[in-house]
């Protein structure tokens, strides 16, 4: 039987316990061969049941009544991931673990995230202000602005942007985050084969700690970026194929996860 690796959650905290120092690699050797990523080998069920593993690379559980190769329903998957997490917490009573928000506080699956910043309707073009620069005394350009009735839209070049531009940017970012929210909450969208989605272990993106990357990640046996961890989760608990760095779903999920930690201090390398 194939390697079945399993589910998991807070890889960062699990991994933090063993703060191994990576081998000092000379910078020019970095492009060579990345170190082999560790694999979590799952036990095989005697009855041919599905075995789901936790992200710690050690814990696993057999799902009675579901054969290997079958997919879990969302409710089953939620139950399994919850049971695995409880098992991990029992084994690691002293682990640093952020409180998971109450279900009532977490957004319903499929709901869009609340907008942190609603785009303001842009002011009429003629009354926009411009940042200084580009006006020469000779041209008399400054005089134009004094004429309030002049139909001038200021801010036409690099570094000078209107409220309209900023509203478009804010909406573009929010659109990206919303797409990430969708992928994060949908097992099928990230190519999962057992029905487990990201939000089952990380409700509301909790315990994802994007601000702590890059850092040494024990499960991987090397220094990881956030996207490496996302891919580990996709390969193991979610049982999908890892996404390319530039995959739109990967980009969107990173956006969503970062958006959820807005305002948290950047502390790369933290356990």
């Amino acid at each position, binding site marked *: 039987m194939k390697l079945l690796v399993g589910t998991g959650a807070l890889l960062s905290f699990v991994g933090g316990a063993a703060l191994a120092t990576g081998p000092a690699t000379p910078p020019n050797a970095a492009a060579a061969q990345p170190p082999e990523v560790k694999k979590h080998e799952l036990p095989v069920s005697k009855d041919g049941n599905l075995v789901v593993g936790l992200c710690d690379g050690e814990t696993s559980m057999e799902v009675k009544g579901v054969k290997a190769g079958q997919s879990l329903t969302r409710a089953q998957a939620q139950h399994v991931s919850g049971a695995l997490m409880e098992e991990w917490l029992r084994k690691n009573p002293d682990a640093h673990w952020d409180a998971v928000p109450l279900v009532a506080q977490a957004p319903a699956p499929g709901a869009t995230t609340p907008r942190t910043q609603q785009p303001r309707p842009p002011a009429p073009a003629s009354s926009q202000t411009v940042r200084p620069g580009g006006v020469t005394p000779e041209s008399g350009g400054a005089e134009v602005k004094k004429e309030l009735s002049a*139909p001038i839209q*200021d801010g036409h070049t690099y570094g000078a942007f209107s409220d309209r531009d900023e509203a478009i940017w804010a909406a*573009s970012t929010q659109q990206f985050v919303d797409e990430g929210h969708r992928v994060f909450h949908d097992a099928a969208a990230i190519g999962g084969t057992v029905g487990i989605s990201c939000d089952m272990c990380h409700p509301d993106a909790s315990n994802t700690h994007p601000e702590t990357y890059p850092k040494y990640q024990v499960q991987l046996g090397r220094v990881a970026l956030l996207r490496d961890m996302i891919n580990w989760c996709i390969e193991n608990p979610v049982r999908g194929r890892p996404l390319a760095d530039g995959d739109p779903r990967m980009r969107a999920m990173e956006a969503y996860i970062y958006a959820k930690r807005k305002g948290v201090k950047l502390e790369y390398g933290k356990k």
Partner: protein
Amino acid sequence: MRPPCGVALSLAVLLFAQAGQAQPAERRAVSLPDDLPPGVSQVLWKLSVPADLAPTPERVLLGEKLFNDQRLSVDNTVSCSTCHDARFGFTDAKPVSEGVKGQKVTRNSPTLLNALFNASQFWDGRASTLEDQAKLPILNPREMGMPDEAAVVAKVKAIPEYVRDFQNVFGREVNFDDLAAAIAAFERTLYSGDAKFDRFITGDSRAFTAAERRGWALFNGKARCNTCHAGNVVSPLFSDQKFHNIGIAAHKQDFVKLAREALKVVRTGDAQQIDELALETRFSELGRFLVTKQENDVGAFKTPTLRNIAITGPYMHDGTLTTLWDVMDHYNKGGVPNPYLDGGMQRLGLTEAEIDDVVAFLFTLTDARFAKYAAKEQARQRRLKHKRPERDTAVAMGKSGNLGDLAPNPDLSVKNPADIGVYGTETLVKPASTSRP
């Protein structure tokens, strides 16, 4: 105990209906049109259409009638649709437009498709709204040639059906502002976003041919088109709505001398004077400078939308480039050097095959309703492709001149940059219906 579901529902419907009745006509019209195609952003629509100027059906009807009415011109020969003809994608397919008595202006007629989303109107942005824009061509001596606003109002008032229409739509006598408002309301219905590109970006990866995919990758990479022609899901116009000097007018001008002379005549904030200078004099080539009098605006023109670019040629503010191959040649050699050339201009080093690919991509931005015309135009432009006045391969390839280094070639064998969500995020969700009334 909760009331049964059906009761709650009918109650809600009842409440909603009552609320709907209580609302004034203009409030009701603010809601999004229900036929927005996938390539039109709802966010941008809301940002671009002011609540009090949303197109009501009555205004749109009156506006369309005025838009097509040659009686708005001094000799009853020219209407708005003369230069913005629906058959040609709301342009006139001429290098520069012709007004009353066969007079030519100095600028190319821009398309009205998606003009409602523009941050400003005209090639130099001298009008900030569609309403302001609609007034100027009526009064320009070389366009529709009416002597002044009062003359327009008097002429329209003498037409009984308009007296009745204005009374019905605006509840008052004919006036110039309402006339412009009606035309602008019609223009706010001219959105377009049902193109092959939209099918591709919303998840149908087979919508593009291999050449079109390569073209989209080049567009975002080596060809650097997205530097100014930026597009994403929220703003899918492929225009930054800014003004750039790409050197088109430098073919025929000493910009510095011309700008000095212009400073002596341009009156700050005089919209009508600027309009006439822009359309009738050699100062036209100063572009945005006429509006702002700022030196770094000399020779700068607005980045036009690339939506429907296949059918809205000839290209550039003066219509001097005939085909999209000419446009690519212009950019490939880094534009035409001049003291005010935009800092983003540099040679691109595109090969002939790459130029063909980018052009193939540009044709995918045409709305489906113009498919037949676009195919004809594509064949015509391809025939002209062997006559290339702007081509300068030595400069484009860096064998002569000094126009900087190139952006790296996209490595299509490793990963197609077209796949990486440069257009925001490729959504896997299928777009809403594209049906039109």
